[in-house]
């Protein structure tokens, strides 16, 4: 599947630049001819320094070079442009100063456009959020040392969330090229090693030709399921020195076809599903593209099978009559599609150990498990994100979205008229059950309606009241933190309506990922909404400035429960286990005394800020004012003091 890209134009740009450049050491025209012809090299015509020395009796005296109008970083930008990368998120750093300069000047600061970030964790998390809307990576640029150290947790989140990132690290490998102490402490022998356990591939090119090849390969690897981050090291010497290599060319990018499941295994899965009386489809990180939703709907409707969407992606419409309606313990066949923690889904804790170390399967006797997951194609061993061994009866290591068409066809081939009638009856019952759940959700949302602090249900309902007639996109995780209320009350039916969560449960993801997702939504004119947890925002709130500076329209609603609430509960659990009571569990877990004024924080960063809002009656008007700001193309934040969950 060849990728549509402006490669030819970019190559021409590069050649035009090379021809016009004043690089002192080489004549550009042979290189230009070599690129036009696709040849690998034309360097034999130029004598080496050693040959010159032999002919003249000694090396020429060094010549002071005041300018270099054709640095290697220009070629790097041509390569990056050929990949169609829209943005580059970076906190500036000297180890990639030449690449930075080439992006903004030689590259015209477009494709990629530099996005100024105030923390490398923000850079990576922004790229994480962007990719979950756009389906493809943007670039992150960082120091190979301190920058990547800042960025490492965010990279881990993306790895666990199976999201492609394109990370380019600056480094100075040659010791003789380092100018002083800062460049010693900012240099590293193997820059990518820090994140190798949770990235898919990396390389440290030693030539520009090597850079070009590895840059294209890295993009291809990142975009092959399972999608994951990749790292490319841009050596400072390669960036800053004049281009001396001949025959430079940019390899063609061909995206790999996503791996489909074995046809025999797919047929076996179809047989189990068609024969099942109570099947359950569980969708994890299934939908890589908008088509994933359509395919899952088609499979579910063909089988009249209920879907449990883990909401790690936008997999299934929230108000579809087959959404919910069955549980794992009632199922006789469970089909897992890129499921997260299949083992955890099918087991529960037992009374033997109240902390959950003892467990048992909740599956019915004889129930069959089918797993389709691309993660099985890329396991690593150190970090334990792979979970417990799931004992599937049928394990299909493949990309689930790519496998669905074959599975749907196999199911259709097996369905007889009698079976279709039986499934139709099941569908009616499931639709009724699903409707009952939605009705109950609306009833439950009324509980605590007028309470202060404001209930998360009220906040979600007020927000939905403002959004339901807009082209909206919710870009924050809203599962546990707000009791899933948006997922229970809103009508999710488009691929960009929801993007799931952090992946690695590394807090600090939320705010920058939301800004990155809003950046991706900007060109579509969508109203991007972020329900922002207070603990999360405080890791790197400066991303608010990035949103303001780059005019990224984003509505952030604070879920301000004034604490790291998950940890409040964890300490409560330990305190009562120790039989000491929980009245001191707030120590070290809450964010109060003094309360943080998030409206003022937003204003300080140049963002429209209102609040704190404690009366639920004030929420609707504040939302209207903030949405008006966002519709003008700017970010806004409303601080809402909320119930814990």
């Amino acid at each position, binding site marked *: 599947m060849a990728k549509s890209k402006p490669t030819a134009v970019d190559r021409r740009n590069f050649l035009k630049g090379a021809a016009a450049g004043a690089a002192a050491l080489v004549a550009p025209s042979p290189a230009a001819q070599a690129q036009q012809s696709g040849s690998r090299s034309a360097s034999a015509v130029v004598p080496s320094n050693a040959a010159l020395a032999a002919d003249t009796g000694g090396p020429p005296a060094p010549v002071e070079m005041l300018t270099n109008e054709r640095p290697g970083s220009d070629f790097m930008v041509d390569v990056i442009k050929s990949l169609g990368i829209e943005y580059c998120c970076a906190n500036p750093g000297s180890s990639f100063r030449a690449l930075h300069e080439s992006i903004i000047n030689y590259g015209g600061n477009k494709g990629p456009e530099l996005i100024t970030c105030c923390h490398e964790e923000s850079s990576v998390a922004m790229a994480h959020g962007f990719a979950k809307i756009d389906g493809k990576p943007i670039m992150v640029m960082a120091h190979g040392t301190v920058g990547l150290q800042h960025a490492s947790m965010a990279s881990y989140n993306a790895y666990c969330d199976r999201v492609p990132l394109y990370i380019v690290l600056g480094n100075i490998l040659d010791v003789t090229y380092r100018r002083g102490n800062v460049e010693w402490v900012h240099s590293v022998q193997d820059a990518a090693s820090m994140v190798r356990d949770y990235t898919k591939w990396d390389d440290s090119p030693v030539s520009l030709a090597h850079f070009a090849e590895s840059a294209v390969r890295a993009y291809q690897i990142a975009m092959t399921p399972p999608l994951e981050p990749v790292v490319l090291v841009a050596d400072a010497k390669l960036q800053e020195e004049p281009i001396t290599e001949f025959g430079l060319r940019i390899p063609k990018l061909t995206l790999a076809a996503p791996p489909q499941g074995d046809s025999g295994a797919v047929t076996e899965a179809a047989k189990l599903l068609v024969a099942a009386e109570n099947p359950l489809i569980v969708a994890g990180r299934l939908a890589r593209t908008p088509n994933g939703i359509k395919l899952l709907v088609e499979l579910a409707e063909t089988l009249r099978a209920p879907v449990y969407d883990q909401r790690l992606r936008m997999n299934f419409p929230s108000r579809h009559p087959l959404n919910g309606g069955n*549980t794992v313990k009632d199922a006789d066949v469970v089909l897992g599609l890129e499921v997260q923690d299949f083992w955890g889904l099918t087991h529960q804790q037992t009374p033997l150990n109240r902390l959950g170390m003892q467990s048992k399967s909740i599956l019915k006797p004889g129930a069959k498990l089918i797993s389709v997951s691309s993660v099985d194609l890329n396991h690593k061993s150190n970090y334990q994100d792979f979970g417990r061994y799931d004992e599937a009866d049928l394990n299909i290591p493949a990309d689930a979205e790519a496998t669905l068409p074959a599975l749907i066809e196999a199911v259709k081939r097996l369905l007889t008229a009698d079976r279709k009638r039986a499934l139709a009856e099941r569908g009616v019952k499931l639709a009724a059950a699903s409707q009952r759940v939605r009705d109950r959700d609306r009833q439950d949302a*009324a509980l605590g309606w007028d309470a202060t602090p404001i209930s998360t249900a009220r906040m979600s309902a007020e927000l939905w009241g403002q959004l339901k007639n807009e082209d909206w996109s919710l870009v924050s995780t809203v599962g*546990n933190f707000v*009791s899933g209320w948006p997922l229970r009350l809103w009508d999710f039916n488009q691929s960009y309506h929801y993007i799931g969560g952090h992946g690695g449960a590394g*807090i600090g993801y939320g705010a920058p990922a939301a800004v990155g997702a809003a950046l991706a939504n900007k060109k579509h004119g969508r109203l991007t909404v972020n329900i922002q947890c207070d603990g999360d925002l405080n890791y790197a709130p400066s991303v608010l400035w990035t949103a303001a500076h780059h005019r990224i329209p984003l509505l952030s609603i604070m879920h301000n429960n004034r604490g790291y609430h998950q940890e409040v509960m964890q300490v409560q659990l330990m305190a*009562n286990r120790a039989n000491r*009571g929980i009245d001191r569990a707030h120590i070290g877990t809450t964010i109060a005394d003094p309360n943080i004024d998030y409206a003022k924080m937003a204003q300080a960063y140049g963002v429209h800020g209102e609040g704190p809002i404690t009366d639920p009656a004030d929420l609707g008007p504040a939302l209207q004012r903030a949405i008006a700001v966002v519709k003008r193309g700017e970010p806004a934040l409303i601080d809402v003091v909320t*119930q*814990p*969950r």
Partner: protein
Amino acid sequence: MNKFPLLALAVLLLPAIATPQAPKAAAKSAKPAVGNAENGKRLFVKNGCYQCHGFVGQGGSAGARLAPRPFPLEALIAYVRHPAPGGMPPYTPKVMSDAELTDVWAYLMTIPEPAKNLPLLNP
């Protein structure tokens, strides 16, 4: 920076499994026979009940709904002393006495039914 969402995940992923062992709600007509509701409200906050169940016992991803129409007092006390595995932390009499739990129950009994037909909750 541990963010291990053990309890909440259990509730979110398997809501039908995590909650069925909770005692059944009291009849709608039940009246608080005993207990100090005002003190119960204070204890509900002091002992962190609201952290999982909400300030008015409305429940959420971390804890079951407690009000309106709370469990019968005896069932509430029994459950708090010996909660379902993987659920809430147990509260022994050393941490909360039966009298204190009775006050909490009295508070829960004062929480009214929610309004019906709220426009923002229309389908």
